[in-house]
């Protein structure tokens, strides 16, 4: 099997030295502290002599949320320098003048940073398995959650790679990546709320499609579904529900996963076009046809 050479090299370089181990240690430390805090509160409750089955749900939710936030913060930092960093180090031309296709360079970079995130996610599994002690959460739910993490991490990674391919400076790419993630998480809610408020007042009964792009909505929907909270569609705001509220609409988490996959694919292709030095312009297809007609 041929492994993408860029991926192989990136993994070698990224895992070398103390940096990678340091990131994992810091990451697990934060998660462990959160888990400890939740446990401490549950067991040291002076008013209760039994273990509340809600503890496992609370611990699971707490860890899941913290892990989700950490991914949103770490992935942009890992990806926004992927291409612009090569440009700054003047190594991009050296790879571009080889037979490697631009899309291979982009996917190699993406998978390398995603693998690093994947490593963090997998390293956190033992912490998550703690909730099995109390019951209430099954392996299926954990796998579903981790699958959602990976799709989200890849989508955020693609945003980072895209800005990194478009901009010369890593700093600018990092800022724009965080900005775009913030827009998806919060901006879409503002836009949706204003849109519904101005055009429909409170009479909007469907799920507003823009919320499918929102990772927080998708994540909340996934957790709510896992706990069986779906009754009544869980309307939060006009146009925003945590489950498919009508027969036609799909669950928001599934909508979010589909959006993430399509969005990632588009960004990857655009990034590959961007770094190809002899790319044809977007409109060259049409000019070529015009020329052919004239001839």
């Amino acid at each position, binding site marked *: 099997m041929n492994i993408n050479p860029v991926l*192989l*090299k990136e993994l070698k370089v990224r895992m070398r030295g103390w940096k990678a181990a340091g990131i994992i240690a810091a990451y697990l430390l934060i998660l462990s502290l959160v888990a400890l805090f939740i446990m401490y509160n549950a067991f040291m409750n002076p008013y209760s002599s039994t273990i509340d089955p809600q503890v496992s749900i609370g611990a699971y939710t707490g860890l899941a949320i913290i892990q989700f936030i950490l991914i949103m913060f770490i992935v942009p930092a890992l990806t926004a320098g992927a291409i612009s960093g090569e440009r700054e*180090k*003047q190594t991009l031309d050296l790879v571009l*003048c080889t037979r490697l296709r631009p899309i291979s360079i982009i996917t190699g970079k993406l998978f390398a940073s995603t693998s690093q995130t994947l490593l963090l996610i997998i390293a956190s599994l033992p912490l998550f398995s703690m909730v099995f002690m109390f019951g209430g959460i099954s392996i299926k739910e954990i796998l579903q959650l981790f699958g959602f993490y990976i799709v989200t991490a890849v989508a955020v990674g693609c945003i980072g790679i895209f800005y990194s391919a478009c901009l010369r400076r890593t700093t600018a790419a990092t800022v724009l990546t965080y900005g775009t993630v913030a827009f998806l998480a919060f901006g879409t809610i503002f836009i949706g709320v204003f849109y519904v408020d101005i055009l429909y007042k409170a009479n909007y009964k469907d799920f507003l499609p823009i919320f499918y792009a929102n990772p927080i909505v998708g994540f909340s929907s996934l957790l709510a579904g896992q706990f069986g909270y779906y009754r009544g569609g869980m309307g939060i705001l006009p146009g925003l529900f945590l489950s498919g509220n009508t027969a036609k609409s799909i669950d928001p988490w599934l909508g979010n996963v589909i959006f993430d996959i399509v969005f990632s694919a588009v960004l990857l292709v655009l990034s590959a076009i961007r770094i190809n030095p*002899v790319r044809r312009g977007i409109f060259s297809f049409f000019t070529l046809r015009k020329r052919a007609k004239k001839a």
Partner: protein
Amino acid sequence: MLSIKGLNKKYGRFQAVSDLNLEIAEGEIFGFVGPNGAGKTTTMKIMCGLLKATSGEISLDGVDVIKHSKEIKEKIGYMPDFFGVYDDLKVSEYLEFYASIYNIKGPDRKKITDDLLELVDLSGKRETYVDSLSRGMKQRLCLARSLVHNPRLLVLDEPASGMDPRARIEMKEILRNLKDMGKTIIISSHILPELSELCTGIGIIDKGRMVASGSVDEIMQRVYSKKVIKLKVRDRLDDAVLILKEYPFIEKLVSDDNNIKASFDGGDEEMSRVLSALVNGGIPVVSFAQLNGNLEDVFMKVTKGDDRQ
């Protein structure tokens, strides 16, 4: 082997390369000479598929470089003038990374890496981290990198820039080896005298235009249509000048100390007549020779200095 026809490259309004034509034959070492900003790097980048030409054609063995860039990239090795290296990568790993891009695997990869490190004299640095190498070593490593896939054409942009004299000589030695291996090499440099020894042909580019191209001798002759003779006498300088001035083919004369430089419009026979006249006139001639113009003078004459902004 390589043919460039009517190449143009514009950056906005700035014309970096204009109507450049060039033919390079197999096995040739072609020196690309020109002041900074003349369009050398731009032309070289277009050759390697790293930049899109505004118009014009470049073909390698009759295959269009732009349309078939993937096949062409297998045949060209490129070394840019500025380049970086990855931190946290060892010398051998660096070469193995590029070898893996060209699908070179297993024992072949190790053999090629070893051979190339030997060629550029870095065998002792296999396990050293690339970013701790000296500049000259990095340049040699980059040259080795451009050879990983055994390309037929090497495009080297200022391979000796920023090197100390010793490193330059070493680089020249490596290039000579590559020439013996039958590689076609296009090399740009501002170190002209060194190029003139190495190259079979040169092209002088200025403000995006090819102002002169051909073999080193041809260009010398074209620029120096008149020869210059230089002679040194022990004394009686004035008498020597008087004798020289009698000949119509001696045009300009400059003398200082005991040296005389004269521009001379004639062949070997006229030269020997002048020398015997001087000796017969009892002038103590110490040396008498035709001055070889060097490439640097040619360059200054053809490009009329680097006065751009």
